[in-house]
């Protein structure tokens, strides 16, 4: 690594207390000094950028390989693109991503219906297993939901 001060080794006392044993990352990290080469290592070839991937602003460019699971799309994709304008340090990065995740759930439902697939929410949520092994909890949740629903219904009716 280049130092701004080329003569740093001439600073009185430089290196006097170096202790190679003082290495809290041992044995997790096998210290080789490679850190000081920074990102000047031999890199694998670049995976072709055939889909849109969102890049962290804390990197100079894409990594040699990347996942192609679900490219950004729709409203959630637009929010994600906004989020990736900000560094990982900022709330402006993470909060929009959480919002995009929630919107994405509705987009998924709309896509399902568009494709003629009505999601089986009971099956997807594994409720049959919950019913088999934890019937009391399911009944408790159902009663709670029914009470909340009834209260809302009563409240709406009263306002009318």
């Amino acid at each position, binding site marked *: 690594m280049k130092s701004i001060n080329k003569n740093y080794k001439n600073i009185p006392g430089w290196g006097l207390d170096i202790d190679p044993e003082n290495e809290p990352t041992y044995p997790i*990290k*096998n*210290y080789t000094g490679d850190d000081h080469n920074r990102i000047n290592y031999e890199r694998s070839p670049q995976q072709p950028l055939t889909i849109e991937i969102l890049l962290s602003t804390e990197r100079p460019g894409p990594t040699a390989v*990347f996942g192609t699971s*679900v490219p950004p799309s729709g409203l959630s994709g637009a929010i994600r693109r906004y989020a990736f304008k900000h560094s*990982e340090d900022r709330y402006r990065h993470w909060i929009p991503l959480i919002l995009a995740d929630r919107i994405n759930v509705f987009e998924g439902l709309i896509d399902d219906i568009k494709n003629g697939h009505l999601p089986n929410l009971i099956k*997807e949520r*594994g409720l049959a297993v919950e019913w088999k092994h934890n019937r009391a909890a399911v009944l408790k949740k159902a009663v709670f939901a029914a009470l909340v629903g009834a209260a809302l219904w009563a409240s709406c009716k009263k306002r009318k």
Partner: protein
Amino acid sequence: MLAMNYRGPYRVRLVEKPMPKILHPEDAIVRVTRSCICGSDLHLYHGMVPDTRVGSTFGHEFTGIVESVGPWLQKLKVGDQVLVPFNVACGKCSFCKQGLYGNCHESNSMATAVGGIFGYSHTAGGYDGGQAEYVRVPYADVGPTLIPPEMDPDDAVLLTDVVPTGYQAAEMGGIKEGDTVVVFGAGPIGIMAARCAWFFGAARVIIIDHIDYRLEFAKNYAKCEAYNFKEMADPVIFLKKATDWYGADVCIDCVGCEAEGNTLQTFSGRIALMQAGAATALQWAINSVKKGGIVSIVGVYGPPFNLLAIGNVVNKGITIRANQSAPKRLMPKLFDHVLSGRLDPKGLITHRVPLKDVSDAYRLFSSKLDNCIKTVLIP
């Protein structure tokens, strides 16, 4: 091919997806033979990890048979039976060269704070995971490891994450002979960390959780003391008393962001998402460890931050050690422990579920039904 498909919090299903393709000369395609649901998959399942996109396939603990290989691969060949460590690592960057395979700098374009992980949201690189019939494995000469013929396949699949993460949790604790080690969380990782603490010379291992069947399992499997924090007025006081009012030598957080036990943490972290999950276990670890003690963290916390007693870390002179584990670094040692019979990873498996029932398997594990400790999906 068939693959698990995330549809939103608490909703997954099995869908037909296109076969994965070789996208890079160092890729391989692996036909999955076993794939586990990890406790950290539940953070995705519960919608706790930002940038978890609908349509993703989870799964970072899997074994399989190499189906096809990219032109640059030299070690793997078609037909090899491999276990695939959960992290995607290039083997060439400054971090990989120093054994920090969980911190690879060439596997995650979308965040610098974490390396690429199979099936673990776009925050961890956007890779599809192994809860599928087939999976694309980048840098396949680096991570995937041949399964020795004498190794049980169920042991092999747990060597992709559970065993190395539990082992490294204990290793990072810097345990000295005679130490008292407290492990928070009696899930598979916590149980493994408690078991592995003995390898490093602990004299006393205590595990803390609130689920009785898991505590009972941990007591038998890891030969440790096990206590339910719901039966204590204050877990920190309990642990201080249990250690002669001194504090534990080492505390290990194997819980992460979905901890129970503190109303403020639960509300702000798990319900309102004002912080990166509930850091209750980590708070207890910081406050239960002795002055000058070590806190080891392998529990998963999402971004951006958590509310913690950092002042106590400073004033007590605590050393915090944490990382994603590096299974590749630990593999020779762990193979030895498993093949010699000292460690029995498959003993953690309580449920084997066909991939087609993936939504039931997630619910079973998430709700801790039927005394579930570890679930393996069989494609």
